């Protein structure tokens, strides 16, 4: 074998190597993400897909028009936005408060370790278990009603999950309970990364606790806050199991979110074209948010 050919082969091998390492990932993502997304997009452009005796008809953007002008869709969209925005904001507040508490210098390491585990607890439960747990607590004859009634906070027993006026707030509360530990854990790591001398010099300049928080802690956590909030927002828009297993979108669609609406359109009404169209709208919203997320990740990388 001649020398140059050998070098050429070596070089080519070196060039292809990174793709080789990536090949299992790329294969899987192509087959199970890219192709399904392409298919769902095609479905959204035609009528009579999947279980339909009639041949598929290309209808262009008609399905989108139908979906976007539909009152049920708009209801689901506004519920989703309420659910997601409130969740993200309160997650942030609770997550940061708990992280600051657990970072206090007035507590011993053991106390912190114990309370950290307690505070993380809601995180280890899967959505279906969280649904059961809160259906137990929020049952009209459950312990939450009992305590609130005894304390005189509510005048009568509430049907938290089956009252049209309360249900959306109830599921939002449940989602808040189950999701804040992710923030807390990330903030804890972030807080430990803030150098002490920043605070030292802040104190020398005569800053009080609030000023230190406002001018040192918050700006230092900013990159974490942005990526967490965006990621959480995307995840909350996805949320299906929790709502499906607590209210199923009811009563009277008062907790219907985009994911439960899609699921029903596909698997109860068998309107696959409409369901695909809603699925594409959800994807568009998430992609829009994801662009900001990717940007914030990029900025953190550099």
């Amino acid at each position, binding site marked *: 074998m001649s020398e140059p050919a050998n070098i050429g082969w070596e070089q080519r091998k070196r060039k292809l190597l990174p793709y080789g390492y990536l090949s299992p990932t790329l294969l899987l993502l192509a087959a199970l993400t890219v192709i399904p997304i392409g298919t769902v997009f095609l479905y959204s452009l035609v009528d009579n897909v999947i279980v339909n005796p009639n041949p598929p008809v290309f209808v262009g953007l008609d399905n989108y028009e139908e979906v976007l002008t539909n009152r049920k869709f708009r209801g689901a969209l506004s519920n989703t936005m309420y659910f997601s925005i409130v969740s993200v904001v309160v997650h942030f507040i609770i997550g940061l408060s708990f992280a600051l508490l657990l970072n206090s210098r007035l507590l011993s390491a053991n106390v912190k370790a114990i309370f950290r585990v307690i505070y993380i*607890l809601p995180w280890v439960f899967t959505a279906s*278990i969280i649904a059961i747990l809160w259906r137990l607590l929020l049952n009209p004859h459950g312990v939450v009603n009992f305590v609130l009634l005894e304390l005189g906070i509510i005048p009568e027993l509430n049907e938290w999950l089956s009252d049209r006026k309360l249900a959306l707030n109830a599921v939002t509360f449940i989602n808040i309970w189950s999701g804040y530990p992710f923030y807390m854990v990330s903030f804890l790591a972030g807080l430990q990364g803030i150098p002490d001398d920043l605070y030292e010099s802040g104190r020398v300049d005569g800053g009080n606790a609030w000023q230190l928080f406002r001018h040192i802690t918050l700006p230092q956590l900013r990159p974490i806050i942005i990526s967490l909030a965006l990621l959480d927002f995307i995840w909350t828009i996805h949320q299906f199991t929790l709502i499906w297993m607590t209210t199923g979108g009811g009563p009277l669609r008062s907790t219907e979110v985009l994911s439960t609406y899609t699921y029903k359109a596909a698997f109860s009404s068998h309107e696959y074209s409409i369901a695909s169209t809603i699925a594409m709208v959800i994807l568009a919203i998430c992609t829009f948010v994801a662009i900001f997320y990717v940007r914030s990740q990029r900025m953190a990388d550099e």
Partner: protein
Amino acid sequence: MIGSRRQILVRKILIWIALILGACFAGLPVLWMVSSSFKSNLEIFAYPPALIDYSFSFDAYKAVLSDPGQLRFFFNSYLVAIMVTICTVVTSILAGYSFSRYDFRFKKFLNLIIIGVQSVPPITLMIPYFGLIVWLGIYNSYTALVLTYMVFTLSYAIIMMTGYFNTLPRDLDEAVMIDGGGSFVTLWRILVPISLPGIVAVGVYTFMLAWNEFLFALTLTRTNDMRTVPIGIHLLMGQHSFEWNQMLALSVLGSLPVLILFLLFQRYFIAGMSAGSVKG
């Protein structure tokens, strides 16, 4: 500067009050779930409620653990979650190595795709997915669940793994390369052993996600012998009479693996999480 003793004492008391209130918010619901799982089904909504009442027994646990159908859910959950964990860990090590140590043409683009996959809503994939899985002939099988869960665990795992490899100095692997070790040898002999904390973090994260998944476990399986714990709970909920105590016992048992994993590995896990998700 820091204030008098009195002030510190007041502050300490305030912190403890906040700490305990927070613990009630996070822990009481869980405590109530556990205590209710020891009650008889009639006493679940007894008035006035009591944390522990005369009906305390392990009956619900016995019922769950002596039911072969329920045990099968656990077996399936373990099997699927462990397989997903192994496959995701191996795949993400390879991909992370590529992203961390090589420069190639489509690196930025592929990296972008992998970050972007995190934001694809599962419900969007749901509709064509079903048809695809049937077409592949893997409907109602472990393979379908394992491959599907990998789609959702892989991108975060790769981000975490790449982040971890990036913290390791390149001199390490270059030394081995010069000694004549190939690139795979370098990865396997040098990087993998010292990346154990990162690998554990990826593994725990993957296991938790796979153990907990619901939507696809529901739609991609048809028979009860293929179903996992979250679906088992869902099935119990669908029955005519609510066996609350059994559902709760199943929930407690179903949460234990994740809780134990988490307690054992929380240090690694938290470090890995924050290295991957948010590079502050």
